[in-house]
């Protein structure tokens, strides 16, 4: 009899415990980063967003991240593992995770996926991006004003629309100050390779560039620029402490507002697959303080920033000509998001061919 009572009590207790656990079960959120959190660039900023979620909703969510996941088959494995571990919301933070995300999403229809900088969506895959090209336009103007040689060096990763629109926006901004501004581009075919990025920066400076900018994730190019007496721009995060005298400004990604908003939607059950492309106006992109430049240049930059934020100015406004001379946009027209997302051509004024 004692034994029976004991067993009943134990099983009742366990049921209550299990019930309590299910009731308080936190939403598990997974993050896949393409680089290390310590890159102080792209992945670092995404992790800041993750930490913002923890700070604001820490009692309802539990976050986990995997860093340095290479784009390709490894990505699919990593995403699948997160889904199997019970994640309800997964952020895949690089363009190259596009197809792996969709594949895994099909197998886990109850899990919600957010893919950064991609263009393919499905019922449970949303995409999100930042209008970084708005920042590129501003730094293009600064570059043209600050450059003594009239040549800037651009360290680019892969020839995808995201990167191409950045290059185009940069030169368009520069051309408003100096119509003959020259741009030299080196493709390093990696998002993060400090050695190669440093080499590319050295070569560009050796060829006459005195402004360095990049669409890669390490602080190496800026450090090389500082070392060699050139100036540059930080990428994705404020890199001022790596080059206190050489960073002019930085295009900073702030994913926190978007991440917190989407997490709340999942918790409330109102999450829908959507395509968010926010920029200066919504705070997803912001400029680091303007440093190491004369007051008139920073005033100009702030004016441009205000114009873009208010919507009065769009970097891609016609008349716009492609590199081959054909007209891309008629005078006065503003480019539409679809054309931007599929951009695979250079604007007029860039020497060198865009690789496929």
């Amino acid at each position: 009899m004692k034994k029976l009572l004991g067993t009943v009590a134990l099983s009742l207790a366990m049921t209550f415990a299990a019930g309590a656990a299910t009731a308080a079960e936190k939403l598990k959120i997974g993050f896949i980063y393409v680089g290390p959190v310590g890159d102080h660039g792209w992945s670092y900023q995404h992790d800041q967003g993750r930490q913002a979620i923890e700070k604001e909703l820490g009692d309802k969510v539990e976050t986990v991240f995997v860093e340095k996941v290479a784009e390709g088959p490894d990505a699919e494995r990593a995403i699948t593992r997160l889904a199997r571990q019970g994640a309800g919301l997964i952020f895949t933070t690089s363009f190259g995770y596009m197809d792996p995300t969709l594949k895994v999403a099909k197998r886990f229809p109850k899990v919600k996926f957010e893919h950064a900088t991609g263009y393919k969506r499905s019922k449970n895959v949303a995409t999100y991006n930042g209008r970084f090209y708005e920042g590129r336009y501003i730094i293009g103007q600064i570059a043209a004003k600050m450059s003594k040689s009239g040549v800037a060096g651009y360290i680019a990763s892969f020839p995808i629309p995201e990167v191409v629109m950045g290059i185009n926006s940069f030169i368009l901004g520069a051309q408003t100050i100096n119509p003959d501004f020259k741009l030299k581009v080196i493709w390093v075919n990696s998002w993060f390779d400090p050695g190669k990025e440093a080499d590319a920066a050295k070569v560009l400076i050796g060829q006459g560039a005195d402004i360095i900018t990049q669409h890669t994730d390490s602080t190496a190019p800026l450090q090389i620029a500082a070392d060699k007496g050139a100036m540059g721009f930080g990428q994705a995060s404020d890199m001022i402490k790596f080059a206190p005298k050489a960073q002019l400004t930085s295009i900073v990604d702030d994913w926190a507002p978007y991440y917190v908003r989407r997490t709340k939607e999942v918790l409330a059950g109102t999450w829908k697959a959507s395509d968010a492309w926010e920029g200066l106006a919504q705070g997803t992109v912001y400029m680091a303080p303007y440093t190491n430049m004369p007051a008139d240049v920073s005033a100009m930059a702030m004016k441009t920033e205000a114009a873009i934020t208010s919507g009065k100015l769009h970097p891609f406004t016609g008349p716009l000509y492609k590199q081959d001379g054909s007209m891309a946009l008629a005078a006065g027209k503003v480019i539409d998001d679809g054309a931007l997302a599929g951009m695979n051509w250079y604007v007029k004024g860039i020497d060198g061919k865009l690789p496929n």
Partner: protein
Amino acid sequence: MSALEAVILTIITASTPLLLAAIGELVTERSGVLNLGVEGMMIMGAVSGFAAAYTTHSALLGVGAGLLAGVGMSLLFAFLTQTLMTSQVATGLSLTLLGLGLSGMIGEGFTGLPGIKLEALNIPFLSDIPFIGPVIFGHDILVYGSLFIVAGVAYVLFCTRLGLIITAVGGNHHSAHALGYKVLRVRYGCIAFGGACSGLAGAYLSLAYTPQWIENMSSGRGWIALALVVFSTWLPKRLLVGAYLFGTVWIMGLYVQALGVDIPSQLLSSLPYLVTIVALIIISGNKTLTKVNTPACIGQPFAPER
């Protein structure tokens, strides 16, 4: 600074870590030991160098720490393969994995911190000569160190008794043992030397090349160094040519891209490997010379016959 100056300086910077790691491995292999753990020793040198330099604010101490880290890793390898007689290939690969993982762990707190740069030796009068000044006299000690080490290794291997002993141990360890040479002692020494050089190469990466610590920053250079040693048929002069050729094609690939020439960047990225392999194969066309210089006992554990 002219473009040519900039290119030459960049080439020298790119080639030095390869040269350092490879010359150390050359000595190790000459004594008959195949140490595949170059990448692991190099990355441990990088993280130790950075950590020491960051905490002491002295790049030179960082270089020393990198050297010691390389020696430490290599002595572990030496103990396993020479005293415990484990398979050299397996142990070397494990050493690489250990180095990569351990360095990531140690470097966790150092990621993304601004680094201490190993400054160039600015020799007061000589460095100011236009063109020749920066190109020949404007480097940091590790660049000059790498060239001295190569010259030193060539001298020791071919002009001294120690070099003969090392070659003997690598060529036929049983005969060397019969002659009374301490095979294990020689191998321990050569392995430690190889470790020291790999450690220096790693320290160069995190203190001079890109003064910061990022996990995996050696990016496979250890493997390139290993290949260079073999393709140069264990001759220091050819190794020097190979390492600098690799660095030259690597930098010229970036240079060509910046000029706007329409060659796919991926092809340019693969050219250094192709060109270096082809060039070294051509140089090593003399079969007799190749046979003479190959350490016949490489990879074989030494167990004295009773």
